């Protein structure tokens, strides 16, 4: 009986209609589940601010439009456009460094006519894996040493520029998305092992490039109690929120940490603490499970993709999506330093939703443009 239902579901998912309109219904379903849950938590985290929930809903719709739009575009066009787009975006990053606007001592945006602002580094999260995947698309895998070096150079150019804005979090994520392509392309294990060995040295070097506030974040991560009212406050309060939620949580809108403002940035980066407090470990488990649904579908799409470009791109985008989730929940629960990474599709915020939905558009495109077997 259950077997039958499962088969039917698959049949439904593979239905010709979905393929025709280039929608991967399983991925879409998992995403909608996440978004709906996210809106429920956001309503509580925003202090029952319906306007904020509506704005987020509007972003979801725009994101969905971008997603479905991109899904119509066959991967081969993406491949062809990749290098030109990459170069164009690098030029924009240079533009950001020269004419950028921003806040809190960081220049991240380009001002567009009509009062709009545009953050090139955000797009780079997609274009980086596109570029590297393009690089490998007509090369034989696994990469040679020379190719590895070239790819690292390609990765480093935008990463350094983003780090200079300064936006270390995005820079690292962009780097990671490129490195994922390298890994999926079959990067030799000896490189991986040597990188693991060299990482501490790199970390030391990185320390010297860090701004004071970035160093403070790392120090606070290592010992949050050292400054309970200052920079340690966030992490102490988020751990308290999550821990006091227990197995089943205090109930929706009943989280005292969140509702009494003990929890900072509760609707943006720390939203998972609200979830943990109000819905407990059960709620967190469902959230993580939903992410795993999305990710497993993404990895399946990557594994069954038709060519190297699509395979590498889809794999890297999926893994990067996981990294967002892992870094965010890791930082809010106190096992990773506080870096400004939102929880994808749940945290309140504009640009990241659009880029994330764009990646799923690419995944759908990869999935739905396969030639029929």
């Amino acid at each position, binding site marked *: 009986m259950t077997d039958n239902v499962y088969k039917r579901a698959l049949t439904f998912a593979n239905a010709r209609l979905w393929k025709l309109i280039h929608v991967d219904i399983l991925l879409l379903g998992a995403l909608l589940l996440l978004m709906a849950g996210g809106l429920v938590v956001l309503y509580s985290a925003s202090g029952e601010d319906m306007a904020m929930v509506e704005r987020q809903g509007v972003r979801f719709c725009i994101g969905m439009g971008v997603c479905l739009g991109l899904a119509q575009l066959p991967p081969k066009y993406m491949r062809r456009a990749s290098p030109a787009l990459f170069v164009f975006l690098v030029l924009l990053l240079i533009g950001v460094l020269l004419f950028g606007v921003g806040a809190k001592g960081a220049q991240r945006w380009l001002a567009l006519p009509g009062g709009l602002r545009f953050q090139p580094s955000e797009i780079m999260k997609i274009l980086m894996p596109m570029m590297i995947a393009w690089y490998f698309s007509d090369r034989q895998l696994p990469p040679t040493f020379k190719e590895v070096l070239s790819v690292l150079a390609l990765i480093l150019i935008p990463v350094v520029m983003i780090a200079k804005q300064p936006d270390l979090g995005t820079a690292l994520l962009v780097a990671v998305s490129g490195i994922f392509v390298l890994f*999926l392309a079959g990067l030799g294990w000896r490189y991986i092992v040597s990188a693991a060995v060299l990482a501490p040295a790199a970390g030391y070097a990185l320390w010297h490039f860090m701004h004071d506030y970035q160093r403070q974040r790392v120090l606070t991560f290592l010992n949050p109690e050292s400054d309970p009212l200052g920079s340690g406050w966030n992490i102490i309060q988020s751990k308290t929120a999550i*821990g006091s939620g227990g197995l089943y949580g205090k109930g929706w809108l009943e989280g*005292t940490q969140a509702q009494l403002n003990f929890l900072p940035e509760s609707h943006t980066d720390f939203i998972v603490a609200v979830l*943990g407090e109000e819905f407990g470990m059960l709620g*967190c488990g469902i959230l993580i499970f939903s992410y795993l649904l999305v990710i497993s579908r993404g990895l399946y799409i990557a594994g069954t993709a038709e060519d190297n470009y699509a395979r590498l791109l889809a*794999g890297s985008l999926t893994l990067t999506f996981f990294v967002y989730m892992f870094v965010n929940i890791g930082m809010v629960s106190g*096992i990773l330093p506080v870096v400004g990474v939102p929880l994808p599709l749940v945290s309140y915020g504009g640009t990241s939703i659009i880029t994330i939905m764009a990646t799923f558009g690419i995944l759908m495109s990869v999935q739905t443009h396969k030639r029929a077997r």
Partner: protein
Amino acid sequence: MSRRHQNFRNYRKEKTLTQSRIIIAGLLVLLLAGVLMARLFYLQVVQYKLYQTKSDENRVMLVTMPPPRGLIYDRNGVVLADNRPIHSLTVTPERIKSLPWLKKTLSGMIDISQDEWDQFDEKLKEYRRPYQSITLKSQLTDAQWARIAVNLYKLDGVQVEAQLTRYYPYGKDKAFAHSIGYVGRITSKDLERVDKQAYQGALFIGKTGVEGYYESTLFGKAGIKKVEVNARGRIMEELSQVNPVPGKNIHLYMDARLQQYAYDLMGDYKGSVVAIDPNTGGILALVSKPGFDPNLFVRGISYKNYSTLRNSKELPLFNRALRGGYPPASTIKPFMALAGLEYGFSSWTERYFARGYYQINPGGRRYRDWKRGGHGWINLQRAIIESVDTYFYQLANKMGVTPIHDFLSRFGFGKSTLLDLDGASVGLLPSKEWKRAKYNQPWYPGDSVNIGIGQGFMVATPIQMATAVSAIAARGHYYYPRMARTIGGKPATFQGDSGGVHNIILKDQSNWEKIVTAMSKVITDPKGTGRRLQGTDYTIAGKTGTGQVFSLQDGEEYEADKLVKRLHDHGLFIAFAPVEKPKIAIFAIFENGGGAALPADLTKKIFDAYIDGKYPKRYDYLKGKNQ
């Protein structure tokens, strides 16, 4: 290297390579998701209790509401300890720009002493919930308050809070400091003996006097509000509230007008006056001169003021009425007489030839009488009237110390009978055991002889003397001395039966009337030592005393003008009036007063005032409404 030259690519192999990497990545994803779940399990299940507690500590705050302190009134409803609102400058450290900014800005507006900054810095270091304010300067003057108030808009994090503080309306006149006592800032030592939670919002605690003894009564019960607060310390919701119970008002036996009058009558002399109502044991006046202004301590006394008080040679902080140990001198004689009668060593009829001196053994040391030629043939009554030293020398010698000790202790000597003030000294009522323990010496007959006239080892405090006099006035039917008459409108009660009557029953109860007669003749007899008290429309019984500050050597003469004032004799006087139905019993001592004349004159004025209402007009402000 050779791979480069291959012409065809194995796409299948490449696909498998990437797929295997995807599987590895997928496994890593599962592993890391497992790490997250493990972390959540640790926080939400293993450490659930800890974080639940932390969360509650965050949100629930107990706000203590200090109760208004009970007031202290005299017997006629004159307020001696009052509450009045003051304004304090408080600072919320989280809201100020910076500490240096605060110091710079505030010091431009009002004077804040280094002391106050130091205390502030200290409190800043202590644990405190975020956004809880700290008092920087209490008791702003109106001018200071005004200056802060107009600048408040640019003083983020600075507030002016109104609180009730203690105020002693007649503090400046210094007469009440030793009886009413005072409140002061709560120290960490004070907090060890009280409930910390209850005193959380309180500024003061009773330190001495009635304020100190009745602290818990006057304080009342702090109210506790359980509130839910947000992260900025703002109260979001009241969870529960227990209202404060105001402190109880205390009405004293003390007559403020009498107290102030007696204090002023001491003039520039040091000393003490204690007046007791023999019918109740109620203390009508409790003067220790010099006094001080207790308001100084409420405001937080400056170090300079304190050391001035502390180091003054006149010892204004020393409570002479309770702790001053004086030789009773001749004022002990009526008690000695009663002891002699009680134990059969003396009788009213037996005659004694009083020479100018007394010797225990012929040819031994001469214990001299105050009258060089002696008094001739006398009896016990005359011995009291003329204060014949030699009579009491021989009586004490005959009795020995043990009967004296046992009998005098029935009057409260050698112990503290004061019911509701702390810190009273027990004086010294010597005994054989005491001398053995203290000096490892036997009791000598000479020791008894000295005690016979209230000198030697014997030491009594003014409150003890006044109590003993009240016992004679009440014919043995006396009460332990007490300050409080009513507490919260109900008669003050005391633990056990110590507050009740203490009856001294003599073997021959008629001796009470006889000793009273003798003491009234001290005043009325032409040769009576207290004859300067004659001319009142009521009757007085009393006894004079002259206390030696230093001992004259055998054969030396006391010549006042050759001695520095510090070595002049103390003048003492005990009395009660009216004789038939006493309303007031008194003990007065003028340190280095030279003799009993000064305390006797004081006593007459006090009696005129208390019994006949003959107060100087200038004391009308302390009259109260009940008279």
